């Protein structure tokens, strides 16, 4: 056997190893926790979009109010 063949046959043996699977309980736990985390993340994103809209509206109102005050003063 030459030195080139030997390593490849080693990797081939490894590639033939059977797959391993986690327990069903582990899978369930992972999916529940990850879905909860995804839900929280998307909820947070939604909340942050609402916060930004509110902040923009308040800023707009403040600018309009300031303009009105200036108009009334002068």
């Amino acid at each position, binding site marked *: *056997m030459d030195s*080139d*063949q*030997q*390593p*490849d*046959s*080693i*990797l*081939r*043996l*490894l*590639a*033939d*190893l*059977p*797959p*391993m*699977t*986690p*327990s069903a309980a*582990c*899978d369930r*736990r*992972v*999916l529940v*926790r*990850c*879905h909860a*985390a*995804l*839900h929280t*993340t*998307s909820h947070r*994103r939604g909340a942050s979009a609402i916060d930004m809209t509110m902040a923009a509206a308040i800023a707009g109102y403040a600018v309009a109010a300031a303009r009105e005050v200036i108009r009334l003063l002068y």
Partner: protein
Amino acid sequence: MRHLHERPTPARVTSVTPDAAARSYDVDRDFELELVGRVREGDAAAFDAVHARFNSRLFGFLARLTRNRDIAEDLLEETWLRFVANAGRLNADTRLGPWLFTVARNVHVSYCRSRALDDRNSDDALGLWPAPSASPFEEAVGRELEQRIEASLASLPVSCREVLLLVGVEGLRPAEAAVVCGVSAEALRQRLKRARALLAECLDRSADRTQEKA
């Protein structure tokens, strides 16, 4: 004497891992990009698709790295949670396989550091896989072969084991495995060469012991 790794190899032996490469990237790239985009948006169905595709592979990688199913399950959970936590920050062109294996490897490295684990002890590996059943002869022989490979793999230092797992078992390209391990392509090539030689040596010794017993 005919040793284990001298099994006749079918067809050509020029590419690194022809069979494993097919196993690794059977993911259509367009579909992968679509999944990445949807996961970034927090799409649970897309997450489920990624989970279904990579869960067993990540578990196998972690179980063979840790040599303990329970610890591997804990690290697997941590890997997926990190994936979800960072989903929004994924690049649009992220390759999921290397990304997930990088996270899994980092989780394992953190675990080893936190426990100051001595990697040289491989006795616990024997309890990882079920004992050969008293079934037909071929099945018993096949099981014995698998167990010898698993035991030899488990006896290697973790730096060698992870390279063999990534390239040999999981079918990552050496360049991708280099990214996962955080080393240069040349360093990975050297490490892979050394790991293959060590594994061949272990398999030889294991074959010798089997023949002596017989």
